[in-house]
């Protein structure tokens, strides 16, 4: 059995006065793609933001490689080796693609250059528009840049929030292919509404409903359970 890399235990988070996460429990095993599923507003994005310390948890425990990270500042959590691809992609619109990558790169040693070269081969569009401002890229290219930025450092886990959102089907396919390839090199936690995509990539799933994890298991089980999909995801 693969080792547990990230573990959330009874995590609760408030945003202002709203009690968004009311008991999130899940484990992410090394080398796997864990998919968080659930309806809009269920708490999936907040879960990723809580892991990153952007919406700090008020209760519970978050451990990464057996170390408690719940109270750490965001930059420190990122330095532990967690890359984050937010829902809005977080592109620095007035910086070029090159500058966006440079902000992210902790160092410019051989290993980082190798990773940069790998990711640019995976997303050739980024190489093509290297000197173009991030804000001028298409939705798909922005998504690729955001994933590339999270990957370029020696991160051993990526948190990716709805990479297919707002993209044309052909672009979704491209993004999905690249995540499939990256899966061989890093652990991934994916929030995804597109069940087709999630079920193709994912190894395990967790369903979040009203701020709580309500079901989990291998992805194959969910693929075959029409009733559960209908109940929690609204799809048959």
């Amino acid at each position, binding site marked *: 059995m693969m080792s547990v890399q990230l573990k959330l235990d009874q995590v609760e988070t408030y945003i202002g006065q709203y009690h968004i996460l009311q008991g999130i429990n899940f484990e992410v095993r090394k080398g796997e793609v864990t998919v968080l599923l659930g309806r809009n507003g269920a708490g999936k994005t907040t879960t990723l933001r809580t892991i990153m310390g952007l919406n700090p948890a008020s209760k519970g425990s978050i451990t990464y490689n057996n170390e408690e990270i719940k109270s750490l*500042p965001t930059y420190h959590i990122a330095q532990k080796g967690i890359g984050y691809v937010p829902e809005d992609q977080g592109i620095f619109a007035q910086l070029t693609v090159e500058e966006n990558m440079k*902000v992210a790169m902790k160092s410019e040693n051989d290993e980082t250059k190798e990773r940069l070269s790998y990711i640019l081969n995976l997303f050739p569009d980024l190489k093509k528009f290297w000197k173009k401002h991030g804000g001028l890229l298409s939705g798909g290219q922005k998504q690729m840049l955001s994933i590339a930025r999270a990957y370029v450092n020696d991160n051993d886990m990526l948190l990716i929030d709805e990479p297919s959102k707002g993209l044309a089907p052909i672009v979704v396919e491209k993004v999905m292919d690249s995540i499939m390839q990256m899966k061989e090199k890093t652990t991934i936690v994916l929030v995804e509404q597109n069940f087709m995509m999630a079920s193709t990539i994912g190894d395990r799933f967790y369903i979040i409903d009203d701020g709580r994890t309500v079901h989990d298991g291998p992805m194959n089980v969910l693929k075959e359970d029409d009733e559960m999909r209908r109940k929690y995801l609204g799809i048959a």
Partner: protein
Amino acid sequence: MELLINLTINGLATGMLIFLLAAGLTLIFGLMDVLNFAHGGLFAWGAYSGTWIYATTGSFVIGIIGAIITGLILGVATERWIIKPVYGNHIQQILITLGLMLVLSEMLKVVWGPNQISATAPSYLAGSWEIGNVIIIKYRAFIIVVGLLVFLAVQYILKNTKIGLIVRAGVMNKEMVQSLGINIQKVFMLVFMIGAGMAALGGVLLAPYSGVIYAEMGLEFAILAFIVVVIGGMGSFPGSILAAILVGLSGSFMAYYVPDLALAVNMLLMAAVLIFKPSGLFGLKG
């Protein structure tokens, strides 16, 4: 023609002084989302400390360096103890920095007395050059050159260094910068220090230009600097110099041709920008 050149030089010199104050304000505003009403106080402290050091040592250069160091020290102290506890809360920021502005002004009176203090330029910067029929006052040309050099130096840092890149990225999306593993708090402190240093430099340069310094000078110039930040665009460094020059020139020309409107013109410029481009001429936000 001579008149136009003189009015332009006056306007540029005033613009550069406002720029030195506004540049820090816009970066602090843009990067840290902090409304620092005490920035003018740092400007006034630069003027007083620099003038005093100049008078004591007899060296204007040492006076300038002393003023910048004073600004840096006050900048660190302000960021650590006054601003840091109120990050993210604009109302508290306004109240506490306005309070600090008053404290800084009053402290000047405690240290150097309540009366105005006269200031003069060193002999090598006094007087003027006569080129044809145009008289160029040396000290004004000096201010313009210093302002431009500061602009070019900071612009170089912002464009060509990693820390500059982080500052520019931070102005656009602080949260993302932190998510990339960068300790933005350290960047905040650095930017605040540099902003305070530039404000203090502006203050010490203003002293011989206006001939007198007084405790409330910071507040008067801070209002112009806030107008410049709004016109140039929050967080835009190039915007701050262009808007400062615009404000300086319009003030200089209006004071000559339509003196009654000299004070109103900056407000009118700001109102026009707010109506037609609320994010400012070069705004990175909004």
